[in-house]
């Protein structure tokens, strides 16, 4: 049975010339619908149409019609649709209102003025459905990303929605957190709920999906849930194992932490020019702290860190926070100018598949495009030391391939590279050595 019907729908964001969605015709049935497609293709916009955030929250122009569970979305405010459509966003930190799990899950119920006597049972039911009953009463800030996203899912489920929509819910999570969330989503579908999920990690979802919808350049193609054809790219040749160059960075007996909390304890490690060192390990294990030590952004409480002179290209955990110039080209040009390197900004923009976006305001880009934009902003020219913290987070396959090629190129040029990444494919493709950072130790 169709829960949502979209008929000849087109949508333009405010002041946009091009339509973000073009003449979309789509019917969403019960069960699991997977939304796939490249970054910036219109997936998030399509999902926001389902609960009316587009156009009610974002404004802009809309044509055509959409009906969800018999309600005309264009005429029904989002706050009313909230009872029918639950929504889980990408970033677990930016959808939390309260600081305690139970209260957070109850937020929607409080908004619809549910009597207190019924609310507690609903909260318990939602926590159970999302598989997080054990988190009741916990402070939200003490939860891992995966736990937070499942609490967000519970918050959506508390309203007993007819349809649950998830917008790349694993893009900010480590593999363990992502697996937890996808398991919870699949359980919902088995319980008979309708769910629509936009996701790059398709393998596990497609086995349980009823339909696959590919969104690209604002148009949709509906098909059976088989893996989409990968984009045509040049195969990535794994860089030949490099002869270690000169020592690029080293640390001896390094201890570091915050206040009384020791994050890394008596660490010895080193990296060479033309070498890719990958850091793996659980969240909170110390990967980011190790990168910051190598970069010189954090001083050790004990021990010494040494690095060869030269430019450091550092991608922080939330890279899009860097972007502030009027255009993407200006963002790259600023780094090159400061480094005194003669390269043209368009070189790296082309390498990362961003040339067509060079004149755009970086913060107007989609999440995946922003991630690449931040990489373009820190990586141009010939950095001596490249430190990247989860560089493939939220990236589609094509973008990841482009980044892999760029890192291989930097390695061949003699840069020393350190990647903190959960992405096993990236490690397999590039790493000369893998260091596991866990419980304050590096092994």
């Amino acid at each position, binding site marked *: 049975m169709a829960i949502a019907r979209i008929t000849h729908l087109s949508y333009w964001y405010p002041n946009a010339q091009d339509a973000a969605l073009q003449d979309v015709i789509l019917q969403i049935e019960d069960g699991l619908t997977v939304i796939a497609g490249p970054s910036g293709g219109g997936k998030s916009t399509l999902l926001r149409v389902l*609960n009316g*955030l587009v156009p*009610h*929250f974002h404004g802009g122009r809309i044509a055509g019609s959409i009906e969800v569970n018999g309600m005309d979305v264009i005429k029904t405010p989002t*706050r*009313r649709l*909230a*009872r029918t*459509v*639950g*929504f889980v*966003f990408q*970033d677990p*930190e*930016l*959808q*939390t*209102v*309260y*600081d305690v799990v*139970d*209260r957070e899950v*109850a*937020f*929607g*119920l*409080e*908004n619809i*003025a*549910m009597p*207190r006597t019924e*609310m*507690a049972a609903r*909260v318990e039911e939602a926590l159970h459905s999302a598989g997080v009953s054990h988190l009741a009463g916990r402070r939200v*800030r003490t939860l891992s990303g995966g736990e937070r996203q499942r609490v967000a899912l519970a918050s*959506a489920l508390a*309203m007993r929605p007819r349809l649950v929509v998830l917008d790349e819910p694993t893009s900010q999570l480590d593999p363990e957190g992502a697996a937890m969330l996808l398991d919870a989503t699949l359980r919902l579908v088995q319980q008979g709920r309708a769910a629509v999920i936009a996701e790059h990690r398709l393998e596990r979802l497609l086995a349980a999906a009823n339909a696959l919808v590919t969104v690209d350049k604002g148009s949709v193609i509906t098909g059976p849930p088989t893996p989409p054809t990968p984009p045509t790219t040049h195969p990535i040749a794994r860089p030949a194992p490099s002869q270690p160059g000169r020592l690029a960075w080293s640390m001896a007996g390094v201890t570091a932490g915050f206040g009384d909390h020791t994050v890394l304890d008596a660490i010895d490690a080193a990296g060479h020019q033309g070498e890719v060192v990958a850091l793996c390990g659980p969240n909170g294990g110390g990967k980011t702290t190790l990168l*910051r030590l190598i*970069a*010189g*952004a954090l001083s050790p409480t004990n021990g010494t860190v040494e690095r060869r002179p030269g*430019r*450091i*290209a*550092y*991608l*922080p*955990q*939330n*890279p*899009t*926070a*860097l*972007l*502030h110039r009027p255009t993407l080209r200006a963002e790259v040009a*600023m*780094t090159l100018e*400061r480094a005194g390197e003669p390269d043209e900004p368009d070189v790296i923009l082309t390498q990362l598949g961003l040339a067509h976006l060079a004149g755009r305001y970086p*913060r107007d880009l989609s999440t995946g495009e922003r991630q690449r934009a931040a990489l373009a902003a*820190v990586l141009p020219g010939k950095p001596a030391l490249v430190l990247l913290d989860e560089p493939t987070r939220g990236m589609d396959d094509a973008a990841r391939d482009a980044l892999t090629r760029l890192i291989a190129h930097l390695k061949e040029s003699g840069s020393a590279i350190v990647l903190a990444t959960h992405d096993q494919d990236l490690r397999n493709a590039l790493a000369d050595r893998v260091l596991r950072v866990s419980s304050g130790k590096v092994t």
Partner: protein
Amino acid sequence: MNARSVAAWSAACLFIVLFTTNPAYKVLVLAAAIASLAAGAGLNRMRGLFSAVVLIAAFATALNFASAHLGRTTLFTLPQQIPALGGPYTLEALAAGLSGGITVGAAIVAAAPFSLMLASHDVMDALPAALSRTGAAIAASLNLVPSVAASFVQVSEAQRLRGWKPRGPRSWAEVVVPVVLTSVEGSIQLAESMEARGFGSGPRTSLKATHMHRTDWILVATSAAAVIAFIAGKAADWYPYPTLHPPDIDTVPLAACLLLFTPVMTWRSRG
């Protein structure tokens, strides 16, 4: 503890400390606020607050000492040619500055239980129904504060590594602008998330009922009594110029100030 009783106590402290000129009572209010907060939040959690309060109070004191060249007891004199700072530095100006510093410190410590002892939802639940939507919005925005602070550290680090150097106020734009933009985007995403969960639908309810316990009522009663007694007791004013003299202390205003120590017992007894 109930946020309403905490609000009553904070309001009583603020009333007395802001409306009296007498430093003896101000000192008592400051002592009551510190002792109560230590009982309720513990000394460890007060460390950061204390550092901030001492800094702000010291600045307020120094400002008056350096700018009010009044009083008869001159400690030292700077040449009149020095703009703004030149002139006699007096014991009276120092005392008046200290009194101002104590006022600022006491006001901050008296309001601190809202951040150190109560969760944002406690404060929200204590608001009248008519303000519950505003309260929810405030609670949500408070949750963004830690991420803004983290964003500032992260952006300044990353910009430094991109070659940015702090060279005067204008150069900070390269850090402040991305942090502000990120905060604004975060707020928009949070608003989107709230809207998607029915925020703004109409009157709200709350998962937890707020109850006033016996100790909460005691605190409200003593706070009200403190304010009434302080007004009725007509506390003597104090003016340090032209010659410094000790402040007068009367029994009724003194008792009013001592009532503000009530949380030392009630907050401690509630654990």
